[in-house]
């Protein structure tokens, strides 16, 4: 069974996103452990990219801060290897196609396997371009997480049929970032997914508060939160692990009762 599946065995899943190296890799390691201890079911680790076109200002800021302190793909692989000595929950990378492409698809995926990365999310690699890395990701057992958006419509079934790991449902139009309201009919997207695959689906983009996460988890398999966590890290810097831990605890409690 896919390791990613295990993230969805403890009730509805809570999935935090953390940019590696913001404000530095030492702090990121502590934040990841705090989140895991607080009940995070899977963690998305962002490899920073200079021009993250799917991100709003908050995560763009994290990318810039991480790159400014000299974080690189190689350093992040070493960091994950170190994390994996005690962090057991599934870990997936979230980055942009050029980061993988420039490292070399095969070399990147083989290092994912060695270091213990279970999957990868590339927001600028739609269904039509999956073949760019799908052979090598399969070869090394790194699951490529597909995204389905409110605008996917008739594409949702096609994407779901071919999906692996979990499906990332994009809650709203636009880029990442906290939203006060999510108006998309997510149940309808989930229904299409259910008709085409039995792999789990989690919802991200715009979620920040426990009541939102609970509502979302009620109609899907879990909630993904990025910008709200990055804001905590931005605010507390090296002291952020404690605050992220508390936040994750609150959010996991909210989704598990959904």
């Amino acid at each position, binding site marked *: 069974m896919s390791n990613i599946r295990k993230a969805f065995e403890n009730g509805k899943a809570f999935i935090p996103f953390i940019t590696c190296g913001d404000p530095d890799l030492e702090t990121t390691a502590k934040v990841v452990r705090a989140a895991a201890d607080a009940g995070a079911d899977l963690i998305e680790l962002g490899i920073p990219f200079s*021009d993250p076109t799917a991100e709003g200002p908050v995560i763009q800021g994290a990318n810039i801060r991480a790159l400014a302190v000299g974080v690189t793909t190689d350093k992040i692989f070493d960091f994950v290897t170190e994390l994996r000595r005690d962090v057991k929950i599934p870990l997936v990378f979230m980055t942009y196609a050029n980061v993988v492409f420039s490292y070399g698809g095969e070399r990147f995926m083989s290092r994912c396997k060695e270091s213990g990365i279970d999957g990868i999310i590339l927001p600028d690699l739609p269904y039509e371009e999956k073949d760019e890395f799908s052979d090598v990701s399969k070869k090394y057992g790194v699951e490529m997480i597909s995204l389905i958006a409110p605008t996917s419509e008739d594409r949702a079934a096609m994407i779901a049929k071919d999906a692996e790991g979990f499906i990332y449902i994009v809650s709203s139009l636009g880029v990442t970032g906290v939203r006060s309201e999510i108006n998309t009919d997510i149940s309808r997207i989930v229904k299409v997914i259910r008709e085409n695959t039995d792999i789990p689906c989690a919802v991200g983009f715009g979620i920040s508060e426990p009541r939102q996460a609970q509502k979302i988890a009620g109609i899907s398999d879990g909630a993904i939160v990025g910008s709200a966590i990055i804001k905590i890290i931005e605010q507390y810097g090296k002291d952020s692990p404690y605050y992220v831990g508390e936040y994750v605890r609150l959010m996991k409690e909210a989704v598990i009762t959904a």
Partner: protein
Amino acid sequence: MKSKGRFGVHGGQYIPETLMNAINELEKAYDRYKNDPEFNRELTQLFNEYAGRPSLLYYAEKLTKELGGAKIYLKREDLNHTGSHKINNVLGQALLAKKMGKTRLIAETGAGQHGVATATAAALLGMECVVFMGEEDTKRQALNVYRMKLLGSEVIPVTTGTATLKDAVSEAMREWTKRISDTHYCLGSVMGPHPFPTIVRDFQAIISRESRQQILDKEGRLPDAVIACVGGGSNAIGSFYHYIPDEKVRLIGCEAAGRGIDTFETAATVNTGKIGIFHGMKSYFCQDEYGQIAPVYSISAGLDYPGVGPEHAYLHDIGRAEYVPVTDDEAVNAFEYLSRVEGIIPAIESAHAVAYAMKLAPTMDKDKIIIITISGRGDKDCAAIARYRGEDIYE
């Protein structure tokens, strides 16, 4: 599923899922209208009656004599309405968007030429328009910001990243994912995800369609070389396109080398970049060893982009076109030289092409022919060039 819009290994559609249906819809609409007689009649009418096409192919006799080599013709895209080749693509896309029922155009701009052209088409066709422009460029090209506002557009200064053209493209893409149903992203160059590189090329190909006929009329033969500047590459692909099958015609793209290709302050993508995936396409990009996009530099805001259109990457790969670096200094010299010799002030972007022609022409025999595309007029650059020369002039 097979990836679409490939030029050799380049091109493709590397964009967020949120945009895929919009892109597919655009492709379908373009396929429907590109050969539609009514659409083409309307577009031709806009070209001829509004934009002032066909543009002149001007024999630069004085320039030819001064340089003492090949006969030089200038393809005068600077004489188009709004002052550059950008209007060709914009009228095509705006008309297409209107047919698709869109009521709002968004665009990125570097030097402001594409922004002004888009604002113009929006005014003419009664559409809303929002232009994203790097904050750095809003300072370099303050007059164009005012022109866009005068034309009824909103101009949003982009402060992220290097606050230049690439960041304006990123921000326009982000805006499009926020608001798709009524909005068309009027991309300004032969770049981005399929079908943009093809659509923009087809609308710009009028440059070489005209120049090919004009040179045949004037000289009874094809030119030996066609020279154009390359940022994303829209005027260059337009200038090259109808000569691609004529293998004896040298196609030369002039990249902005900034302070030189052996420095970090350059935007010469083909000469210094490597293959990558960014802004929806696979092509050559200036980037570091981990694929982080490099901050690029050129005196020209319009060439200050870290990538190049996928068809240019392909023409480079197969050796059909050459891509040569031209420095700030060379471009500024050419800007001044053409102004003095021919009484034509070229855009600083186009001055890159002139600069290379100044090197090439004297090495060629007098019976050879060069066509240089003057992609835009240089009025917008006068203050910046004066400052480059140490004069304290502001617009």
